[in-house]
């Protein structure tokens, strides 16, 4: 662990109450990165001072109850349609900051057209994709991002890509679209570190995600479409212990979905 990196304990201590969050405890499973993402998005909104002109579009999936957690205006969306709802709203109220939090099934299966066309038109909105390689809310079915051979309830013998097609790389896909401005893939899973004094945890990934999320909002406010794919775990449906699931994200998921900045049209990361 480097000197600049606060420990998890120190980090937790630094987290005060945010006006952007309601007091309601989330329904997310213990260890699920949706919790981290909720906090990071709220942080970014607060840092940018835009809470009073921000609207969240609530998608369908594990983030369906997000309207209980973010103290901003909300519009519910049918499954997959969040970027279309965001488009309609942003077009009639261009001063708003509009974002969606969507799962891999929502964004990349039922809603692939909506997210791609929002990118094609370069809508000034932010899409945060939670990729945990599975349908979480419905109980662990194959998602477009399920890995080769991965066991899910609808691929009980492992995903056979000969029949299902290969996992979809959303970040790479969106980055190839001319209209997208900022496209980045991060991991929300903390990683383990061996130190001389024993095992500890690194939140390097979280800090990187934090910056990416803030950049995404900034790019939106500069008039561009931003897309941040957040690799996450789902230990409940993966049927793994929490820390093992997080390890799987950082060891296995990143192999299929390499982290990094895939597009930065406005050079926001250099600013």
């Amino acid at each position, binding site marked *: 662990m480097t000197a600049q990196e606060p420990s998890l304990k120190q980090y937790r201590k630094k987290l005060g109450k945010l006006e952007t969050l309601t007091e309601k405890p989330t329904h997310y499973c213990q260890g699920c990165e949706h919790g981290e993402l909720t906090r990071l998005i709220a942080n970014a909104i607060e840092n940018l001072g835009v809470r009073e002109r921000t609207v969240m579009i609530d998608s369908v999936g594990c983030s369906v109850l997000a309207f209980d957690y973010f103290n901003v*205006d*909300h519009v519910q969306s049918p499954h997959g*349609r969040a970027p279309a709802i965001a488009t*309609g709203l942003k*077009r009639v*109220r261009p001063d*708003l900051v509009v974002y969606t939090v969507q799962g891999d099934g929502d964004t990349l299966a039922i809603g692939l057209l*909506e997210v791609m066309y929002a990118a094609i038109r370069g809508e000034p909105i932010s899409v945060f994709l939670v990729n945990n390689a599975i349908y979480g809310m419905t109980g662990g079915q194959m998602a477009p991002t399920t890995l080769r051979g991965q066991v899910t309830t609808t691929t009980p013998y492992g995903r056979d890509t000969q029949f299902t097609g290969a996992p979809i790389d959303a970040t790479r896909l969106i980055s190839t679209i001319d209209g997208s401005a900022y496209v980045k893939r991060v991991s929300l899973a903390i990683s383990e570190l061996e130190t001389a004094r024993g095992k500890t945890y690194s939140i390097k990934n979280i800090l990187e995600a934090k910056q990416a999320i803030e950049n995404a909002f900034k790019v939106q406010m500069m008039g561009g479409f931003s897309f941040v794919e957040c690799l996450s775990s789902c230990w409940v449906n993966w049927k793994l212990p929490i820390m093992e699931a997080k390890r799987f994200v950082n060891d296995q998921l990143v192999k299929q979905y390499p982290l990094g900045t895939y597009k930065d049209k406005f050079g926001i990361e250099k600013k």
Partner: protein
Amino acid sequence: MTDRVYMKGNEALAYGALKAKLNAYFAYPITPSTEIPETLAKEFGSEEYPDFKVFLQAASELEAVNMVLGAAAGGVRAMTATSSPGFSLKQEALSYAAGMELPLLVVNVNRGGPGLGNIAPEQGDYFQMTKGGGHGSYRLIVLAPNSVQEMASFPKIAFDLAFKYRNPACIAGDAFTGQLKEDILFPTIEARDYDVSSWAVTGAMGRERHVVNSMNLDPEVHEKHVTHLDQKYKMIQRDEVRYESYRTDDAEIVVAAFGITSRICKSVVNKLRAEGSKIGLFRPITLWPFPYEPIRKLTEYAKRFLVVELNTGQMVEDVRLGAEGRAKVEFFGKVGGLLPTEREIEDNLRKLAEEAITA
């Protein structure tokens, strides 16, 4: 635009919407409704319509209607238009809009179905529009114009009702009312302002946040929500029924029809009246809320009804519900894009008049 115009129903509807201060239109082309977005695209940016701020062509019917949802959540006048196969694709969003209590307008220029059908006029979407084509207990406010004149004046009425009740509204045109060209005196339309401050999503500045949502996981909370919607629908049924009752005062036979079919039936009524028959026309203008009570009242004199539709019998079921068994209700329909001739309607009426009533 001058007051005296010769235009298609679809064009008239577009101008009617503009005069009603339409703010945002989301398009997807489908015959026979496409003149609506084409007319609006042409007028987009014109100084005559400063409220018309957004025109956007979507990549699918689903995308278009969900954009309408997003814009409506922002508290503005938003609409889209489509035709039957496209209207099927709107159902998901309409169910959401009803649950989220969003005022918006979807125009359905009814064509032949089921499936791809054809692009000729039909009224086969009556059930879908009036009974709720999407999931859950909800209703759309459905207005059925029968002329180019009404295509022009109905968008304003639809927006007024949609915003008054915070409910999606629908204009039920057909390939005839959409494609028909008529010489009309364009109606004077005075748009009203709507107060959306209590719910519109505009950013929670100096106020509590607004959540436009249709979901309540708690059964008791959700029951409350659905009951609230139901009470609203009952209010609409009580206060917003619209219909045209033509020469029905002493009518013993009533021909019931909506949209373009009612125009043909009116000619038949005039002809048979001239011959001394006690016959009248009943035309529902709101297909939902349906005028059940006016029909029940008509049955005090009229013991025979002929329902004429461009389908295989849909509104006839509502007329029967309204008649409550007090009158004989028969049906005559045409499909595939064919229209009933006056002669055919006349023959059916004569046959009905001769039939003995066993009740």
